[in-house]
């Protein structure tokens, strides 16, 4: 063992022992874990924590049973989630009143509270343990492995689970080229959406000379409907930081100074707080800053918050934003690896990409590459949302099929509903119909199908979603978020939106569909950055897979999903109506009238089609008709 490597090893040992005596989360100990992710927070984890503390105090267990607030468990649909170790009893949707019973049965004894357990919607069976729930059992968790197991505020927890050993390995080897080769061999590709080979990016960045190199973590997860990066940062911030330090060493080790930035959305206050906290702790233990682990390598990371601009997820817009400019992309004839932040060579990777790096270094490129398909290696995290039973955060091997993800892990559609489409890649991606459910998930096959991997948003929609309305939503989003630099994107997206609006109002003609298609091509061709280059994708996939539905809007003025307001009409089903007046009470415009216990009626002239009456009706007596109105 060389002198350098023993020095680094000792330094890591010192960092670990500096935390001696602090409580470590441990699967084998008796402890209560509460998910402290954003979704579980919103569904009431603070009140739950108070109830747990009070109940433990009351029973004199406050010192004996540890309560650990972990990162996102992923099963957000069932929040707030509590897991009782060591058995791993899983309690979803817990309320403070249930706590004493849970503590007396599962913490003080070895039993389970049957009535509070998770019910598998497929079998109707109650499942006691986390590992047996289909949602978890079918996943392969590499990046999310420690999410839900460790306290994100505890560096010691991360160290106890082998954290920073990959960094120590890299620093003691002292060969940056070797790390790049390892990452290249692993086949890791950028998880932000485009899938550029990570190792190659690092090599290019290293080759470009500058006064300084920058290593940036892109956590500006602007994709509506995606929260993978947020959950990783919230649940295991150190894994991202470790990945960044390794990247910095690969790029800047023996090659000049390097500086790091994490560009994170401000809409994610927990993630910002946990990352800042983690950076401070890492600095205290000499894992970050000057002379990291005694290796002589200097690197520090600053946190920069976004300010609500989707386009800032684009690399050149992101650097402009850090520089304090309007976040407008530039042409990329010169890549950011050559001319990025402040004009210096800059490496920008996504959160998930960095979080994969420690695993690759620790386990080796071959182990990483053994998962996945020929061109896409490893696993991918998706945020599965929309009209599925089990929404949440999932990690599956590349090459898993959409059907496995949506129907086996996701538990399929809500009762009585039929699968219609799955939207991948957010506003830049496309919708895939049921016929493509057996498509494997990897970069190439999704692209060929007219969608894209994107950062991992996966929104499932059923027959109650109108595809025209859905495409309108995405286009409205990109039209608003277009920075305005390239005319085809700024004007083109607005014009396309107008056409879609005409379609949804029943005022379009079939020629409009051709116009839409040719406009889409122009926008793709004429935009500098990926926002414009991919903005028409939702529309193109709509035209490709759901043309029937558009034609039905145009020709028959029929919105099959009964969503497009100008094409629908509300009425009361006289046989079902009991005259309970619930709809009268909620109608904001007093369009519903009728005596108690007599059939109500809706005044079409007043009705604003807000759907309040249909939701309030308990007898399914409010009906929605379509295809009956003449267009305006």
């Amino acid at each position, binding site marked *: 063992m060389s002198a350098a490597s023993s020095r680094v090893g000792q330094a890591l040992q010192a960092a670990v022992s500096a935390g001696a005596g602090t409580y470590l989360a441990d699967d084998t100990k008796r402890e209560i874990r509460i998910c402290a992710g954003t979704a579980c927070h919103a569904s009431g984890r603070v009140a739950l924590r108070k109830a747990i503390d009070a109940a433990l105090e009351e029973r004199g267990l406050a010192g004996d049973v540890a309560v650990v607030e972990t990162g996102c468990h992923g099963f957000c649909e069932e929040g707030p989630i509590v897991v009782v170790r060591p058995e791993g009893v899983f309690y979803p949707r817990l309320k403070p009143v249930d706590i004493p019973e849970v503590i007396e049965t599962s913490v003080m004894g070895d039993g389970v509270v049957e009535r509070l357990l998770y019910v598998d919607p497929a079998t109707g069976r109650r499942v006691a343990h986390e590992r047996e729930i289909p949602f978890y059992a079918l996943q392969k968790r590499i990046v999310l492995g420690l999410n839900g197991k460790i306290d994100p505020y505890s560096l010691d927890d991360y160290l106890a689970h082998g954290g920073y050993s990959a960094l120590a390995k890299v620093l003691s080897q002292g060969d940056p080229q070797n790390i790049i080769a390892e990452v290249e061999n692993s086949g890791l590709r950028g998880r932000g959406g485009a899938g550029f080979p990570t190792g190659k990016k690092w090599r290019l960045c290293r080759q470009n000379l500058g006064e300084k190199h920058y290593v940036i973590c892109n956590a500006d997860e602007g994709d509506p409907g995606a929260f993978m990066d947020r959950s990783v940062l919230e649940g295991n911030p150190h894994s991202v930081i470790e990945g960044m330090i390794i990247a910095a060493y690969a790029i800047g080790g023996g090659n000049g100074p390097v500086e790091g930035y994490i560009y994170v959305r401000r809409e994610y206050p927990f993630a910002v707080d946990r990352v800042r906290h983690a950076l401070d702790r890492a600095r205290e233990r000499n894992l970050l800053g000057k002379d990291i682990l005694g290796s002589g390598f200097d690197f520090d990371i600053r946190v920069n918050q976004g300010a609500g601009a989707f386009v800032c997820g684009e690399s050149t817009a992101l650097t402009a934003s850090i520089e304090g400019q309007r976040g407008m992309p530039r042409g990329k004839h010169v890549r950011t690896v050559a001319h990025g932040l402040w004009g210096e060579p800059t490496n920008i990777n996504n959160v998930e990409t960095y979080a994969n790096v420690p695993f690759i270094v620790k386990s080796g490129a071959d182990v990483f590459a053994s998962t996945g398909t020929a061109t896409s290696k490893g696993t991918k995290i998706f945020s599965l949302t*929309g009209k599925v039973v089990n929404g949440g955060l999932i990690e599956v091997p590349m090459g898993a099929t959409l059907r496995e993800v949506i129907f086996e892990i996701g538990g399929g559609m809500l009762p009585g509903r039929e699968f219609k489409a799955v939207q991948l890649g957010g506003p830049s991606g496309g919708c895939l119909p049921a016929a493509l459910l057996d498509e494997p998930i990897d970069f190439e096959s999704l692209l060929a199908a007219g969608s894209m991997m994107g950062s991992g948003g996966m929104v499932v929609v059923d027959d109650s979603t109108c595809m025209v309305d859905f495409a309108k939503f995405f286009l409205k989003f990109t039209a608003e978020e277009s920075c305005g630099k390239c005319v085809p994107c700024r004007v083109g997206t607005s014009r396309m939106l107008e056409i879609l609006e005409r379609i949804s109002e029943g005022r379009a003609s079939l020629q409009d569909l051709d116009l839409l298609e040719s406009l889409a091509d122009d926008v793709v061709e004429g935009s500098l950055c990926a926002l414009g280059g991919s903005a028409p994708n939702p529309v193109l996939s709509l035209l490709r897979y759901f043309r029937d539905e558009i034609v039905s809007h145009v020709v028959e003025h029929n919105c099959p999903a009964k969503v497009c307001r100008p094409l629908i009409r509300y009425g009361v089903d006289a046989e079902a109506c009991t005259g309970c007046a619930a709809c009268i009470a909620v109608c*904001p415009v007093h369009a519903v009238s009728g005596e108690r216990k007599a059939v109500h009626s809706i005044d079409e002239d007043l009705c604003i089609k807000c759907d309040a009456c249909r939701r309030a009706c308990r007898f399914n007596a409010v009906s929605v008709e379509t295809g009956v109105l003449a267009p305006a």
Partner: protein
Amino acid sequence: MAIDNGRNDGGNGHKGDQAKGSALFEVIQGIDFERRELVGKRQGSGDFDLVKDNGGKDRCYACTLCERTCPVDCIDIGYTASDPMLGSAIAAPEDAAPPVDMKLFDPIIAGIRSGSGLVEALHATQEAYGFLPRPALEGIADQMNLPLSRIYGVASFYGQFRLKPVGKHVIEVCLGTACHVRGAPLVVEAFSQELEIPVGGTTPDGLFTLQTVNCLGACALAPVVRLGTDETVGRLGPNEARRLVRRLRKQEVRA
């Protein structure tokens, strides 16, 4: 609106435009010197005109690109007195502007001196005041040695910065994809009707501000609404939205 040297007749023709970033600046002043030089020469420079849309709105939304790329620095973008987006705090005469406690500004200056970027400085300002008051923006411009127009260009580019004070309760409705497919547009509409304000507006009593946000990342609880900075309400339909407003109003009456 012609580019008219040195003339600032303030406030012609920009009224109540809600569109993002439009009609922000009134006067684009050419510098007399360069123009006189060029006029009469063969290539000429002529008068500039800002192109208007069909509706008569200026297409210019003051992205400041022309100011920055002009080879002879002849374009200077300034504030306009009648700008609806700037609001009274920015453009009104000093006596009408709400008082701004400049003590809150000291830590922001300290932050800038320790190397925080412009966007970070704006965040800190908004955190301190709840919005971006003009005196603070001027202070930042001073500290960072940048033109105020540049600060304004950045502040107006990002969706999260507010140039007007907000109400006591800020209601942010998530319009992410998952929320959209589960009916968030109906929720926005319900809030808007119940509060009688458009999205982005504040009620006259200063109690409520209604905003939309792209994604809060709590998609499993869609549709999601955030109240203020710390309370998030999930699975909220239009009827629940109306009830929520009524509940908050009642609280206010009691308090």
